[in-house]
């Protein structure tokens, strides 16, 4: 259906292309150096050595010791391990955990699982209209039964950055473990696990120009946690599975590059994003920014348009080669609008017309101009079809 060959990818929060240097670093580990990191002979030892080197590179970025980095297959797996692994290992201390109401589904549903199958109570903290958690609410929600608090570092949908250090301090003052899902911030924002007082932290490779199939969970040494997979001693016994060496090598390389370019790239993206948001809000009436105006990821724009539906916007943009995403009920497999947009107080129909544009390495000013030219027309056309008009 494509009328234009131009492609403008603005869904970097969904996934990113692998950095050429990361790809190059990975290639030998698919073919000539394919050894299993558990094998005793030379090829196995080489695999083991590159695995540990990757672990060191990653650990350095969040200022922790390498022994705290557990490589997994995805951020979803890391989050499952953090929630279930910590809750179950500490269940003798109490069966209460606290999460926010805007967590990624893998946190929400891991908590649901504990509630349903292991007799846990879960507190789901409300957020304000910008998506911010009030640290005082965390303090108030902690009981003697509480063993774990999990609050995401920044929202994958609306980009709001949470006050993680404050929450970490509150948790530690009350002797409760603290996990943060940093899938959208690792490699984009400076992270110091000790200074932020986090005990567990999730990060993902494919959000920062590494390959899919690699992620890690940082576990502060000494933290009581049990594996959710069983069958081997890999990754300090916490993640049995043959280790995905090529993906981890690519992840470490991509992370190192991102960490180096973080400040410059963040400033560049924020300036492009600010122009994008400002111009959309000016050019298109009845549009509004979702998430916090300042405390947000540099690459995230999430905007709601009244009177139109998101999937229609997405596929109209797709015809012009623009890739983006929506929190509309129509695009969900449960026909429910985004729980994040509802949590920040949007009405059902406002969540319906939401558009998320996330920028990245390859985004240029021309791409932003192209979207700014196309989008007002698309919204106008869809509003002409809509029974609700302005």
């Amino acid at each position, binding site marked *: 259906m494509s009328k234009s060959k131009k492609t403008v990818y603005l869904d970097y929060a969904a996934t990113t292309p692998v950095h050429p240097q990361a790809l190059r670093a990975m290639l030998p580990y698919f073919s000539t150096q394919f050894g299993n990191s558990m094998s005793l002979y030379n090829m196995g030892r080489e695999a083991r050595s590159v695995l540990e080197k990757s672990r060191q590179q990653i650990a350095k970025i969040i200022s922790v010791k390498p022994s705290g980095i557990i490589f997994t297959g995805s951020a979803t797996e890391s989050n499952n391990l953090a929630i279930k692994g910590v809750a179950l290992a500490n269940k003798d201390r109490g069966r209460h955990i606290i999460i926010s109401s805007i967590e990624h589904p893998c946190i929400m549903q891991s908590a649901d699982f504990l509630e349903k199958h292991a007799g846990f109570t879960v507190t789901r903290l409300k957020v304000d209209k910008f998506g911010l958690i009030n640290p005082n609410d965390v303090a108030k929600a902690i009981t003697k039964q509480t063993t774990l608090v999990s609050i995401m570092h920044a929202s994958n949908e609306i980009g709001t950055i949470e006050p993680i250090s404050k929450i970490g301090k509150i948790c530690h003052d009350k002797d409760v473990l603290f996990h943060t899902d940093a899938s959208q911030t690792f490699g984009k924002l400076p992270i110091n696990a000790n200074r932020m007082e986090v005990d567990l932290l999730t990060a993902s490779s494919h959000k920062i120009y590494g390959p899919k199939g690699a992620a890690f969970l940082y576990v502060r040494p000494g933290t009581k946690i049990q594996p959710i997979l069983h069958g081997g001693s890999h990754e300090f016994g916490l993640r049995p599975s043959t280790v995905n060496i090529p993906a981890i090598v690519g992840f470490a390389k991509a992370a190192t590059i991102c960490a180096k370019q973080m400040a410059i790239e963040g400033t560049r993206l924020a300036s492009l994003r600010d122009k994008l948001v400002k111009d959309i809000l000016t050019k298109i009436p009845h549009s509004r920014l979702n998430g916090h105006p300042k405390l947000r990821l540099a690459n995230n724009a999430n905007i709601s348009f009244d009177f139109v539906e998101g999937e229609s916007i997405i596929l109209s943009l797709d015809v012009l080669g623009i890739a983006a995403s929506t929190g509309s*009920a129509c695009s969900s497999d449960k026909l429910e609008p985004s729980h994040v947009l509802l949590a920040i107080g949007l009405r059902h129909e406002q969540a319906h017309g939401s558009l998320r544009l996330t920028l990245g390495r390859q985004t240029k000013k021309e791409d932003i101009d192209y979207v700014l030219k196309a989008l007002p027309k698309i919204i106008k056309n869809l509003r002409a079809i809509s*029974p609700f008009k302005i």
Partner: protein
Amino acid sequence: MAIPYSTKVMQHFLHPKNLGKIKNADGIGKVGNLRCGDVMWLYIKVGKNKSSKEIIKDIKFETFGCVAALATSSVITELAKGKTLDQALKINRSKIVKNLGGLPLIKIHCSVLAVDALEEAVYDYLKKNKKEISPDLQKKHEIILKSKEVIEDRYHDWTDLEEKLHQKND
């Protein structure tokens, strides 16, 4: 979630047929889907054919919804135009889905919405003109009416805005 649409669906979405409002419409069907929140308004103008049977002379739609909702709106106007009222009431969801070259399973409810809108428009016309309404159509109307209250409540801010603007224009 990636939803694969047929070429036919995309054609109707990108180039919808019979789009807009009919001023002084003989019948209007306003329906909404409770689950996903889509809203469809269908307008009909009734005329007579050579054998002086009542037919849908003109039909137009306005829809707030996803690609499937827009495409089903467009295709039902094509299917109903020129048909007698009885024939129009026979258009069902499988006919719509067939004419669109299929719909993803999760989007079948959109075709139901289009059928409801057409039935409501015909019902509205028959009621206004004090014509006979079949028990079947009456029953369907009552079911639709129930969900309509919920939808109207959900969208009252926007419909209020719409009404205010109309008053301004009138």
